[in-house]
């Protein structure tokens, strides 16, 4: 039993460490303030919860573990509130989650990235045209056509609608 608890606490601690590292990496690597908030939110909930649970299992039931639970619950609820408040103040301060905020050199970088993305897209399109993906395209087109046919077949009009349509046809010419 004790061995099982030790293993379980070790696994939980490892999971929490992984969550912390991934969140910190996202904090450094992501391009935008709001995406960074997203990364920190994961770090503050998953990382804290897993590591606190791991320490709880290691300790067993005592006053220390109760205090640990208090820390974990407090952090689990207040950290998302804090990140949400940061996002709200930033949004009211004029930052939009839909646009990047290029400052100085990053503007040039963003422009270069856009050009590179366009070029790569063109390459992919050319490859698709020349490659053997025509069959796949045909299949998809056939499927769409079949679906349309099925849809037109299954739609049964009520008599009133039929009359309306007939009236429109008569009146049109």
């Amino acid at each position: 039993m004790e061995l099982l608890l030790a293993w379980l606490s070790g696994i939980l601690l490892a999971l929490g460490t992984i969550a912390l590292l991934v969140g910190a990496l996202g904090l450094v690597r992501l391009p935008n303030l709001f995406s960074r908030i997203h990364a920190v939110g994961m770090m503050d909930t998953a990382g804290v919860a897993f590591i606190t649970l791991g320490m709880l299992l290691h300790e067993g039931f005592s006053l220390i573990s109760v205090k640990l639970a208090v820390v974990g619950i407090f952090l689990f609820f207040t950290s998302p509130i804090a990140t949400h408040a940061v996002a709200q103040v930033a949004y009211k301060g004029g930052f939009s989650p839909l646009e990047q905020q290029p400052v100085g050199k990053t503007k040039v970088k963003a422009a270069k990235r856009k050009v590179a993305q366009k070029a790569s897209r063109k390459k992919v399109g050319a490859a698709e045209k020349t490659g053997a993906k025509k069959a796949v395209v045909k299949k998809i087109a056939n499927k769409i056509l079949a679906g349309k046919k099925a849809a037109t077949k299954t739609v049964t009009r009520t008599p009133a609608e039929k009359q309306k349509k007939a009236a429109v046809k008569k009146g049109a010419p």
Partner: protein
Amino acid sequence: MMMIVALAGCGVAMVLALVRVARGPTPFDRLLAVNAIGTLVILGVALHGFIMGRPEFVDISILYAVINFIGTFAILKLFSTGGLGDRGGKARITPETDEG
């Protein structure tokens, strides 16, 4: 053993967050990273206590959690209103001193 690994992970994550503090283009980025560092310090204090065989350090981490939360909100209020008083930045100029 896993505790030491977790403490090392906390340290690495703290360094990464410090990079964001140094580089962050906006003050909100810096505040976010500082908040994350505070959370990591809380975990680190608790883990350090367990590793050293003195789990009473958890008390300190409770205190630090509260201070971290309130500090984040204080800095946010300073950003959004320009002051920490009742009426934000305008609290400094009272009507008496303004007229007299």
